[in-house]
């Protein structure tokens, strides 16, 4: 949403036009045309959708499936889409619900499997950190490890906090946009964001011990 923040931005208008065209083509039985127009929407949103799904699921193959399911579901339910809501908001809601369902299913499957302990290594206090200076191989390796560590910590957050954190921080959504996706009001979104950050730091510090 970083690229389509302002209401009535060109990208958002294009989304709305494409969604309307797909809806009317579907209604008139012109399925090939509907799929062709829908491919435009898929192309515009699939990278961001894949990123969101991956941050939720931490598994690339499962994220792929979640994204595919999300787009197929959105296409089949497009008649219920209201144009006053941005397509990306509506679609992100579908995607996140799908990801949460998958996490629940996975949790049920893995109920009896003991989770692996976090690996050794230290997470420095944020005050000791400085801005990145060049992506050397070592830096990239560290960044990957850090990403995994943050991902594991994120997975331990409550659903709402995780959703708010990822949408706000990773995807650059405003509180209003996060509110539209999650159904929360803006101040609640900020509370969840604050709690998510605070808990994330606690979890990362615990992982260092």
């Amino acid at each position, binding site marked *: 949403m970083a690229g389509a923040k302002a209401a009535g931005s060109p990208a958002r208008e294009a989304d709305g036009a494409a969604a309307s065209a797909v809806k009317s083509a579907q209604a008139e039985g012109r399925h090939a045309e509907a*799929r062709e127009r829908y491919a435009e929407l898929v192309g515009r949103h699939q990278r961001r959708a*894949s990123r969101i799904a991956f941050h939720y699921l931490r598994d690339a193959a499962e994220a792929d499936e979640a994204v595919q399911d999300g787009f197929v579901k959105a296409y089949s339910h497009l008649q219920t889409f209201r144009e006053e809501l941005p397509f990306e908001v509506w679609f992100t809601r579908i995607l996140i619900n799908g990801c949460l369902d998958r996490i629940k299913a996975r949790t049920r499957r893995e109920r009896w499997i003991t989770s692996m302990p976090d690996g050794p290594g230290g997470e420095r206090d944020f005050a000791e950190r400085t801005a990145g200076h060049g992506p050397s191989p070592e830096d990239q390796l560290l*960044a990957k490890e850090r*990403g995994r560590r943050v*991902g594991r910590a994120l997975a331990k957050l409550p659903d709402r906090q995780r959703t708010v954190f990822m949408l706000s921080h990773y995807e650059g959504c405003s509180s209003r946009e996060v509110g539209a996706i999650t159904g929360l009001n803006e101040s609640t979104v*900020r509370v969840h964001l604050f709690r998510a950050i605070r808990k994330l730091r606690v979890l990362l510090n615990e992982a260092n011990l």
Partner: protein
Amino acid sequence: MKPIFSRLAGGHLDDATLAAIWTSTPAAGATLSGGAADPHLASCGECRVRYDAFASWMEEIRADARMEAAEIFTPERLAAQQAVISRRLEAAERPARVIAFPKFPAGGSGRSAPVRRWIAAAAAAGLLVGVGLGSIMDLRHVAERRGFPATRTVQQPRVDATARAVVPASAVVSEELLLLELEAAATPQYEALRAYERLTPRAADFLQSSR
């Protein structure tokens, strides 16, 4: 949102407070410019440094996450994903193939009710006629007249007249020989019993009289 502005020794802001200030800025993640959300932060250089470090840490997390996802979801992978989505949409719109199952209407048969009634009546009439004819005619005699054995029990040796009539001549001769042999074997060897033996009818006499 009501941030918890707790203070460390010396009046400095703690980490939670810095995080609260960070999340309450209009664009979370941006470093503070000029007037800070908290008066202490605006005036305290030490807290300002810690706040900037916090903002950098948050930015680092975001950059790591984006880099990780970008490495995984390459343009080729996204193209393949889009192709799969297109195929699935196309498959979903194709009319479903219905496998034909044998038809079982509510009545359990494909025929109409009057036809079923006629068939049932014909079957009942056939049964009655069969039972009636069976009681009038002795089908066993018909079978025997045509040369078929009435029952399978004729394979057993029979002693009645009917059975004798159908026993072959070779069997009759062997039967007579057997009787004569038995008679000879049963002839008493003691003189005292000869009188009784003479009073007993002999098989050979019967055979001669029957011829």
